């Protein structure tokens, strides 16, 4: 066989792997989003692009754009400010309970936005802990949103930056010291430049997540504060102004595309050659007052910002005597739902299992195709495209599902699979991000060694790749599961009213007046938190720091 024939066969294998993910994203992502945009911008068979200018020049829309941007910038800055010291503490200090603390820090990242919303409402909202103690309320200010964003994204910075920091060879700094650099100069000249790309990548991820924030702002923003995503939701479900919604979707699409482009660039830069060592070898017991103070500060931040809101949430859910709010969840007489709210737990779990299976299949195939050595430029472009569902309005996707998938040949409006499909769309990028670095790290020569010993390509995958990535696969599945459980933006549109998922039920309870509804929302949020935290703690036992980017 000639080299060309072999290249052709390589492309064929890659195309085979890519076929399913491409079809999936085309059908359940591109098409619904396109349908929404067309519905908003196309009238009488013609495109009305002039409307884009009309919409974005409206004062209230410009206000939304401005707020979305500056709150994302402020959230990112605040998160970096609070989380970078923690990245250092986790990377370079060794202290008792470090593993537990690492898990605690990560829990918020996988918690559903509505849980965070509820928790901060219980802490800083009307009748919240601060209100009771000092009469302080933050839910009418932007601070509630910013703090909730820090709560979520603390782990992104700690993991991305701290993970790399822990693996940087301390001897590089020592070499600089031997050449006459002061400790600070050595850090600034050697460690900081090595960390730079990781800090940039983490900052961009935080910016992306906060720029497209929905659940948190929906619950904590009140009528005053509205991000693009919240505005899209408002325009579609309350004002029924599809044109404005479509334009805002396009604006968000463009912004997210730009952010992801920059992110892909920093990731490539991050792959530059660094001397990496085993993280266990770089951590030392804290020395000197400075390091101890830093450790204490990080512990205090974690306690106040990450643990306290969740503790208050649990406390609130227990306010009624004899687990009253929890017992209320099992009754149907609340009037908010047709079924007992606790039924949502079962619904959510079923959906999440189905969504996880789909996300792992689609994301796993895509990662396998992207990890191939012969991946060309086209495929690498697809790598970035796969991240788009993370940032494109979930609300748009959900509403697009209703519009695009409601007629033959694909009429899924009545099907239960609609919700898991939408959730898998958001989960699949996490699967790809987790699997890809691990698959790429598998030494090609191990595969070659197996082939020379007589293993066919399929046997090579089963005998070499699978055992090495099994752990990453489980971690990816866990992420997809947690993401599916917490998914709110798309699910709120397509979950059937008689069968809400946990986050949808929480949001609906919060939107009703009365202590009983509020208490039930807290109770249901607590249940959701426990399920997600359990899934995560299971993962923490499996994962190593090098597994994936999240």
């Amino acid at each position, binding site marked *: 066989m000639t080299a060309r024939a072999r290249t052709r066969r390589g492309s064929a294998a890659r195309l085979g792997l890519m076929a399913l993910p491409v079809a999936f994203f085309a059908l359940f992502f591109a098409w619904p989003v396109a349908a929404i945009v067309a519905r908003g911008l196309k009238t009488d068979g013609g495109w009305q692009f002039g409307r884009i200018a009309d919409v974005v020049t409206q004062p209230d829309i410009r206000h939304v754009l401005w707020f979305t941007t500056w709150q994302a910038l402020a959230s990112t800055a605040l998160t970096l400010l609070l989380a970078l010291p923690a990245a250092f503490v986790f990377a370079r200090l060794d202290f008792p309970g470090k593993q537990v603390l690492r898990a605690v820090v990560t829990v918020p990242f996988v918690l559903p936005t509505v849980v965070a919303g509820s928790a901060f409402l219980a802490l800083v909202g009307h009748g919240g802990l601060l209100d009771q103690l000092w009469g302080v309320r933050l839910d009418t200010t932007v601070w509630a949103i910013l703090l909730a964003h820090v709560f979520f994204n603390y782990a992104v910075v700690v993991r991305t930056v701290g993970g790399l920091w822990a693996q940087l060879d301390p001897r590089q700094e020592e070499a600089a010291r031997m050449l006459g650099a002061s400790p600070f100069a050595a850090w600034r000249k050697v460690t900081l430049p090595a960390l730079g790309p990781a800090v940039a990548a983490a900052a961009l991820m935080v910016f992306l997540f906060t720029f497209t924030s929905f659940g948190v702002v929906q619950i904590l923003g009140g009528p005053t504060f509205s991000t693009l995503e919240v505005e899209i939701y408002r325009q579609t479900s309350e004002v029924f102004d599809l044109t404005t919604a479509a334009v805002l979707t396009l604006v968000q699409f463009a912004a997210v595309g730009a952010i992801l482009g920059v992110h892909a660039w920093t990731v490539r830069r991050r792959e530059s050659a660094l001397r990496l060592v085993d993280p266990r070898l770089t951590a030392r017991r804290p020395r000197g007052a400075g390091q101890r103070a830093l450790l204490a500060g990080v512990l205090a931040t974690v306690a106040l910002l990450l643990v306290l809101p969740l503790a208050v949430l649990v406390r609130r859910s227990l306010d009624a005597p004899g687990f009253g709010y929890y017992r209320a969840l099992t009754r149907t007489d609340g009037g908010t739902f047709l079924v007992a709210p606790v039924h949502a737990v079962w619904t959510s779990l079923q959906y999440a299992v189905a969504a996880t299976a789909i996300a792992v299949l689609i994301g796993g195939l895509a990662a396998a195709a992207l990890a191939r050595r012969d991946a060309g430029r086209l495929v690498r472009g697809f790598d970035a495209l796969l991240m788009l569902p993370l940032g494109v309005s979930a609300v748009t996707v959900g509403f697009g599902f209703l519009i695009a998938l409601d007629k033959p040949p694909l009429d899924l409006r009545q099907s239960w699979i609609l919700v898991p499909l939408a959730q898998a769309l958001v989960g699949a990028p996490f699967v790809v991000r987790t699997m890809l670095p691990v698959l790429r790290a598998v030494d090609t020569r191990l595969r070659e060694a197996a082939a020379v010993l*007589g293993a066919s390509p399929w046997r090579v995958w089963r005998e070499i790749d699978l055992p090495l990535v099994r752990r990453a696969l489980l971690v990816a599945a866990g992420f997809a599961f947690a993401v599916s459980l917490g998914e709110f933006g798309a699910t709120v549109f397509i979950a059937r009213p008689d069968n809400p998922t946990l986050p949808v039920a929480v949001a609906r309870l919060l939107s009703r007046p009365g202590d009983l509804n509020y208490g039930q929302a807290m109770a249901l949020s607590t249940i959701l938190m426990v399920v997600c935290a359990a899934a995560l703690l299971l993962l923490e036992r499996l994962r190593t720091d090098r597994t994936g980017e999240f």
Partner: protein
Amino acid sequence: MLSLQGATVRFGGRPVLDTVDLEVAEHEVVCVLGPSGSGKSTLLRAVAGLQPLDAGRVSLAGRDQGGVPAHQRGVGLMFQDHQLFPQRDVGANVAFGLRMHGVAKGERDARVGELLELVGLPGAARRAVAALSGGEQQRVALARALAPRPRLLMLDEPLGQLDRSLRERLVVELRELFGRLGTTVLAVTHDQGEAFALADRVVVMRDGRIAQSGTPLDVWRRPADAFVARFLGFENVVPATVAGTVADSPWGKLPVPQDAPQGARTLLVRPAGVRLVPADTGLTCTVAARTFKGTHVAVHLQPEDGPRLEAACALRDAPGSGDTVGAEFDADEIVVLD
């Protein structure tokens, strides 16, 4: 057994393997010797089917291997850094090839035991590969490659990462083992000592081409050209004009053997062929440096005119740095290269 005809591999237009012709007979141990980047690893990968050829052909036992994928070629390859499967124990590593060939469990276990015995690691089947020393990993990798009874065994820098004493011991063991098993072997290395100790025949490669092929003794005695001579570690290589039994060189007129080729040539003067004599006879030189080599001292001489000259000298006769000495030459230790 193995035959390469015009085998060519290009990376981005640059030939890494350039129309290589090579025959390896059954039971023969051939060692490809060359500096890094000379294409020797690519040669092995091409034979194994891991690297497609851009031109030419590879045949095994008379059958063209074009289009035969790596796992169906029935050759063994021991990788440079062993590439043991980290998640399997020693026994499972050795048994891997047997499993791929559908050998039954009982037979497999027996063969694994037999092979571990053969490589000097009896009873190591349950050990984790991460817990093995470099030398032990090398033995396991050898057992793994031998297990499916490949018709051709290929070794890529088999002893490259081991320390010197272990390397010298293993080379002897390997040589004995291949002799006993009658295995056909194609090995590559950059270490001439290893190649000479291991091989029936040595093939020297340069820039993707074969520079010389012959028995270790032949290659050592008559390097094909200046490149091969320098690669073998000889420093005294100079241009010269040969007329009769005298060569005109930068070091003056040197005696050469009777049947030496005539005309403009390259001259190799072995260090053993440079005799040190009192300063008033022969070529006058200053001793620039001396390095202790265990059995002798290598003395670096700087003539008043011309390039440096290396001489091998018995320990007790070695002059000190800065001394002025004379150098005389021995025709038997001078080779006129083609």
